[in-house]
């Protein structure tokens, strides 16, 4: 069965929602979302730590969407805006869940999946070494961090990258990434 966006978005929007967005990922959208996240996660000492982690993960997740979202599948270009992405931030227990989603061309999946699996298989010391290696040896593109974003997220949260690729049509999949952040 092919990917049904509305069903996916409904499912994402369960629980105690702080931010829920579907549409163009623009600089302005990023600024507004960061502002909401910062003001909605409280001021208690435990929450300050959590807020910092959430803020960091939000910056990297949103900028990943901003830089890497593919053009939309032809048949839905009318239905969704260009540069389309999904962001949902929700409270779950004492932590926060951040879900991002975007369409991705089929031929890019393998590279991304290999990268996600590699990061997920690494321990803290390996991640630190990989981060420092990329930082010091790899030339960054204008697009940004040379792939440091995902490594940074895992280093700061200590969780795995929970992802799915759902088939939309021959050329496109929908990539969804869940990140849980706890104190």
């Amino acid at each position: 069965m092919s990917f049904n966006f509305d069903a996916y978005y409904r499912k994402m929007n369960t629980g105690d929602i702080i931010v829920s967005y579907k549409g163009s990922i623009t600089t302005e959208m990023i600024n507004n979302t960061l502002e909401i996240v910062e003001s909605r996660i409280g001021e208690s000492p435990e929450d300050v730590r959590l807020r910092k982690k959430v803020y960091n993960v939000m910056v990297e997740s949103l900028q990943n969407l901003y830089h890497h979202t593919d053009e939309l599948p032809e048949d839905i270009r009318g239905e969704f805006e260009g540069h389309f992405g999904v962001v949902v931030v929700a409270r779950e227990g004492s932590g926060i869940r951040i879900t991002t989603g975007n369409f991705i061309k089929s031929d890019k999946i393998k590279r991304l999946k290999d990268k996600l699996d590699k990061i997920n298989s690494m321990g803290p010391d390996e991640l630190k070494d990989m981060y420092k290696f990329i930082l010091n040896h790899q030339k960054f593109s204008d697009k940004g961090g040379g792939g440091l974003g995902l490594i940074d997220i895992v280093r700061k949260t200590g969780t795995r990258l929970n992802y799915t690729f759902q088939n939309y049509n021959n050329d496109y999949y929908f990539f969804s990434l869940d990140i849980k952040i706890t104190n």
Partner: protein
Amino acid sequence: MEPLIIEGTPKTPSVRFDAQQGLVEIKGRSIPENSIEFYKPLVDWLEKYGENPAPLTQVNVQLEYFNTSSSKCILDVFKKLEAIFKAKHDVVINWYYEEDDEDMLEAGEDYESIIRVPFKMVEIVD
């Protein structure tokens, strides 16, 4: 040499580079979508400053947040300072982090392990 002064914004840090005082200061948030554009004048200024630096260059980096796109640019700034240090001029990098912000401390330690310049980790206590 003219100082380089840039006001901070919600996504870019304030900058105060003063050749006469040997002061290099970056403070605030560094989370722009395009960091290269922001940091280019800083790296260029330091390149020129390196031709005739102060006997001691005090570097204060006090960031609340920085994104991975900025992390490479910050390394480029530090590499310019490393060149000054290697040319036998004193350089000290003070890396400030808020109390309990282990992530920011660790980020400073990552740089310290890459850059051959003395670092001081300074905890900011309220």
